[in-house]
């Protein structure tokens, strides 16, 4: 690996912690980002010459602090401080700093930085964009591409979001246990948003957006390393790893959706699955069930099934039932109905979701799933109606194409039925 590639990786991985610590120090996002940028420029000059520092994050924090202070002084006095090449004992200072920066400071710093991006006034997409820009350090261009908008529009969006969060008061004292738990919950939700933004990508820009999944997993691992005993953080990390493991099998060569049951499971990323399963085990030892853990346990049951027909639908139904209890939502019930249809048949599943018709009237998946149950029951006219509604609500051309496939099958069935009226519909 070349020097530059190494430095690039080191800076990228040190960025969240360094920015977070500089933010605590300067209490201002712009100053922290500028100080970090300056420190990076110096790293590019200094590291190839003097070799990599033992702890890149600590180096960047120390140098960032110096240049930040330097900038503030220069504004006042027009004098400069010596640059870091002339600081004779940088290595010693660095060592000392590493010792002083104990992990409890680090972890609250990072949590605060992530939490700042989750301002409740910001729409989800802006939270994600802000986190990707500030915490992950993705360029505006990269983020714009991921969201399929122009660079200027994204720049404006991020600037506005930043102005909004800068005005908000965020406590810089060490948070209490309750506040810390609340921040963790909010931050987990934001990380999962980043993941889903990547996971739901199809068609144009899908590859760039797919990278958001990797970024979300990186952030979750970072969080987990600092909050080692939080079962929900383990569950979230596991959930994302298990879902992301299926990425290579989720679309066919034409970019069409391949349903879980029809995916080529040999394409699943086994390393991600193993890590996900290990984390599910770790989380469940705590016996503090939470929504991410339950979802990760469901994903784990899919991952464990070597063939689609090996899936333990009974257990999945039980887990969805638990999820329904702690986090009731019509979408969770809809998902449970899929497990119910496998265990008790389409009629039971249909009865379960009929009461949701009003709440989910505008939800693509509701009509798709409902149509599938009707089709299994041979109620083709109703199936066709449900599928038509699903197509009208499809979020992507791929989703619409998938439903159209069902409609084509219905069409073929009815043609066959007309041409040979004695033959009953086969299901």
């Amino acid at each position, binding site marked *: 690996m070349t020097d530059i590639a190494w430095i690039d990786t*080191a800076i990228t991985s040190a960025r969240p912690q360094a920015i977070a610590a500089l933010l605590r120090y300067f209490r201002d996002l712009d100053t922290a980002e500028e100080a970090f940028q300056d420190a990076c420029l110096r790293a590019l000059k200094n590291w190839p010459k003097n070799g990599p520092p033992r702890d890149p994050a600590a180096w960047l924090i120390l140098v960032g602090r110096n240049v930040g202070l330097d900038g503030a002084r220069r504004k006042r006095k027009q004098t400069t401080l010596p640059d870091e090449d002339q600081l004779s004992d940088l290595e010693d200072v660095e060592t000392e700093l590493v010792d002083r920066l104990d992990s409890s400071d680090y972890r609250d710093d990072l949590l605060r930085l992530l939490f700042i991006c989750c301002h409740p006034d910001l729409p989800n997409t802006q939270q994600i964009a802000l986190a990707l820009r500030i915490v992950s350090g993705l360029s505006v261009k990269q983020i714009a591409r991921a969201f399929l908008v122009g660079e200027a529009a994204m720049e404006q969006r991020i600037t506005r979001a930043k102005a909004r969060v800068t005005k908000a008061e965020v406590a810089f004292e060490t948070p209490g246990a309750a506040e810390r738990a609340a921040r963790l919950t909010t931050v987990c939700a934001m990380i999962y948003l980043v993941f889903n933004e990547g996971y739901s990508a199809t068609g144009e820009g899908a590859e760039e957006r797919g990278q958001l999944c990797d970024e979300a997993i990186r952030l979750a691992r970072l969080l987990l390393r600092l909050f*080692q005993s939080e079962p929900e953080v383990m569950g979230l990390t596991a959930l994302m790893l298990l879902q992301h493991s299926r990425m290579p099998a989720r679309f066919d060569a034409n970019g069409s959706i391949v349903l879980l049951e029809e995916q080529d499971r040999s394409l699943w990323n086994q390393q991600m699955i*193993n890590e996900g399963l290990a984390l599910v085990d770790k989380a469940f030892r705590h016996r503090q069930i939470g929504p991410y853990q339950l979802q990760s346990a469901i994903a784990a049951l899919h991952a464990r099934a070597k063939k689609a027909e090996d899936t333990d639908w009974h257990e999945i139904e039980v887990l969805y039932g638990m999820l329904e209890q702690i986090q009731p939502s019509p979408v969770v019930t809809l998902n449970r109905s899929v497990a119910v249809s496998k265990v008790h048949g389409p009629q039971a599943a249909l009865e379960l979701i009929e009461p949701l018709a009003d709440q989910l009237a505008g939800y693509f998946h509701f009509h798709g799933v409902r149509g599938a149950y009707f089709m299994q029951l041979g109620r083709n006219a109703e199936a066709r109606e449900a599928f038509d509604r699903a197509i009208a609500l499809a979020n992507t051309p791929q989703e619409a194409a998938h439903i159209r496939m069902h409609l084509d099958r219905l069409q073929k069935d009815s043609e066959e039925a007309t041409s040979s009226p004695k033959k009953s519909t086969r299901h």
Partner: protein
Amino acid sequence: MLYAILCYHSEDVVGGWSKEQDDAVLGRLATVRKKLTDEGRLGPVARLMPTTAATTLRKGREHLVIDGPFAETKEQLLGFYVVECRDLEHALDTARELARANDTGGSYEIRPLSVYHPPGPMK
């Protein structure tokens, strides 16, 4: 004499490698591994999962299970086992069994492997 060569690096950095970078490094390492295998010198080789997947059993009057990797600096790495286990609970039971046989203190870090190459035929 058998030597263990233990690999240390920042997992942030290694975990941040792109797939191409990772493949390139592993490819070069595979060449060395093949040479060592051909020379009949290579024992088992493993890559560990990230430390976030680790659990630690601290030995004591009551064994204590702690999330995360072994993080004390007063103690040193003295040895390791590679054991097939159904799940984490099974692995912890195995570690407890070892702890009963050697209850003189210390800890066992239980870390799943992400890659395992069994030993080649050794001279």
